[in-house]
């Protein structure tokens, strides 16, 4: 019922969810159900690759919520993704137990290597899955809350806000690089053994993680739809388009921005947490400002303020990246830059805008905005 209402007038979203449902059935089938000599067999490498794209798509969704709908261009959103990833990584490290190189049942290898004799306080509790999962949303959420509160309260907007978000992720990068920080320094966290008792390398575990990623993306999509189709969603668009009008209509703009920023950070954290067990490593490189900028390109390429556009963008740009870097690894950054410039110049509404142009000619009302329409009027 609720799902029907959320996807009403959202053709793109319907397609995305159908595709995801299909993946949910087809991928496990082709990977586990088909013998690996068959041409139809899907290798674990490809399952993991798809799983990675799904995590990126969830991350893109979180950025679209804040950038596309509320006009807040965060250039540091990768930080929330990485923090979620580190929380998951810490859980996975604790699961290694005494199977590490040094065989210390309590301390991860890198701490033994640093001659630490006890676990730092902030590592406590991460041996429990539920606690780690709670931290996956709470740590990014809390950082977003503090950062957003400071920034929005002093009415920092536009380029300035983008720059300080970039500084935020850079500061975290430098912090996590340091061995004293207790997060494995330059090497990060890796050599994971198992998750919830299942070996992380096993094909079945990979499928399990893949399914979890699909479900997370579907739920994330519906949650974002719930937000943007509510009155809250309209207030958020109003803030983007005419902040003072909204303020003088009696809305406390800062609260709305902060709420949305925290929600967005939490979604990014979940994406990071699903990402880490699939790629098998988390290191400070995930905090790199460049990652956050790439993320912005995905959303811009896909199309802002549609939600499904962000997903389409994440998939297409990352697919292109995988393909491109296997052929011309050095040229990828130039290609990415060129892509961004071209999209900004010629496709302001992104790929989904291109696909939607024909439809809009038929229904002129929708053409005016490119935003999903509200159809809840009184009769």
């Amino acid at each position, binding site marked *: 019922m609720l799902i029907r209402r959320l996807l009403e007038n959202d053709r793109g979203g319907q397609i995305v969810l159908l595709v995801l449902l299909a993946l949910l059935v087809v991928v496990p089938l082709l990977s586990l159900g088909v013998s690996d000599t068959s041409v139809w067999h899907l290798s674990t490498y490809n399952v993991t690759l798809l799983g990675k794209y799904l995590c990126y798509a969830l991350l893109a969704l979180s950025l679209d919520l804040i950038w596309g709908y509320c006009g807040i261009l965060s250039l540091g959103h990768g930080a929330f993704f990485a923090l979620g990833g580190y929380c998951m990584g810490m859980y996975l490290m604790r699961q290694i137990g005494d199977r590490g190189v040094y065989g210390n049942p309590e301390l991860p290898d890198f701490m033994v290597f640093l001659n630490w004799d006890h676990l730092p306080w902030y590592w406590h509790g991460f041996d429990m899955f539920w606690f780690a999962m709670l931290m996956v949303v709470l740590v990014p959420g809390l950082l977003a809350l503090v950062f957003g509160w400071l920034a929005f309260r002093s009415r920092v907007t536009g380029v300035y806000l983008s720059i300080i978000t970039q500084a935020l992720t850079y500061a975290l990068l430098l912090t996590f690089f340091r061995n004293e920080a207790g997060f494995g320094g330059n090497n990060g966290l890796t050599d994971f053994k198992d998750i919830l008792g299942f070996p992380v390398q096993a094909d079945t575990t990979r499928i399990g993680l893949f399914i979890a990623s699909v479900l997370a993306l579907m739920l994330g999509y519906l949650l974002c739809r*719930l*937000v943007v189709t*509510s*009155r*809250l969603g*309209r*207030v958020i*668009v*109003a803030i983007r*388009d*005419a902040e*003072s*009008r*909204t*303020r*003088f*209509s*009696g*809305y*406390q*703009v800062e*609260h*709305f921005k902060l*709420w949305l920023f925290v929600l967005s950070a939490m979604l990014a954290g979940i994406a990071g947490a699903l990402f880490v067990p699939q790629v098998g490593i988390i290191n400070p490189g995930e905090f790199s400002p460049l990652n956050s900028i790439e993320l912005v390109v995905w959303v811009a390429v896909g199309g802002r303020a549609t939600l499904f556009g962000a997903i389409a963008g994440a998939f297409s740009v990352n697919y292109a990246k995988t393909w491109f870097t296997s052929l011309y690894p050095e040229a990828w950054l130039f290609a990415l830059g060129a892509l961004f410039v071209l999209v900004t110049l010629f496709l302001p509404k992104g790929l989904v805008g291109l696909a939607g142009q024909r439809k809009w000619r038929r229904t002129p*009302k929708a053409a*005016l*905005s490119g*935003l999903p*329409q*509200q159809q*809840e*009027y*009184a009769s």
Partner: protein
Amino acid sequence: MSMSSVLEKPASLLERARASYPRDRVFEFMQPRPAFDQPVDTRKGPILYVEGVSVSFDGFKALNNLSLYINDGELRCIIGPNGAGKTTMMDVITGKTRPDQGQVYFGQTINLLALQEHEIARGGIGRKFQKPTVLETLSVYDNLELAMASNKGVWSCLLHTLNGEQRDRIAEVLHLIRLTAQARQQAGALSHGQKQWLEIGMLLMQNPRILLVDEPVAGMTGEETERTAELLTSLAGRHAVIVVEHDMAFVRSIARTVTVLHQGSVLAEGSMDKIQNDPKVIEVYLGE
């Protein structure tokens, strides 16, 4: 005999004090935090007290000891040459700009300078901007719905649905601003004049006690101007309406009391005829 003369003296002093202070004075620290949950105290007549307000921007005085009283339900026109400080005055009343000096009270008890923009808006002061500002990507209907007085917290917005009474109110305002037929149209597609009306409609959805209307007829056709005059005069009485306008014909058609601002303070105040024959006003307008 001597007793009564002793009693009489302070009484007359009190009266003199009353005459020179339109609003009851209470020490700042004794006042409760301004709250809108009680009815606005307008027992003395004015609903808005602007007293001795000064605002300077980098040394330039945009408002200079400005004092102004607006009665409840009154329609007041404010005129003045460009840069006289009209918009700045509205900024001060609505909490956008904080004055260096002076006081602004809503009714007798609510100190507007202690409140934030959204609190002032919720409390009953609606404002139309000089440049018409509507939410262009939303429909006309959604514009009105958004402005509607209701719980405007984040969580209640997430779960909000319209009830019958609220729908009726939106329909009523749509009718009043003559946009019923355009209800589902994107606000960005409206004509300039229609946007001005929509913005006035948005103010009305807030159920304000005071409407601050900055240049409502700029860019309107003759007919639209006439209709706007009708609309604003019909609103007076139920709301106090403060209109800033340059169009003299329009001001003449709606004005009862006119205040002339010049260099950040009141130059003259009175009926349109009185204003037009005031030598100071003539000098300011013709001297430019």
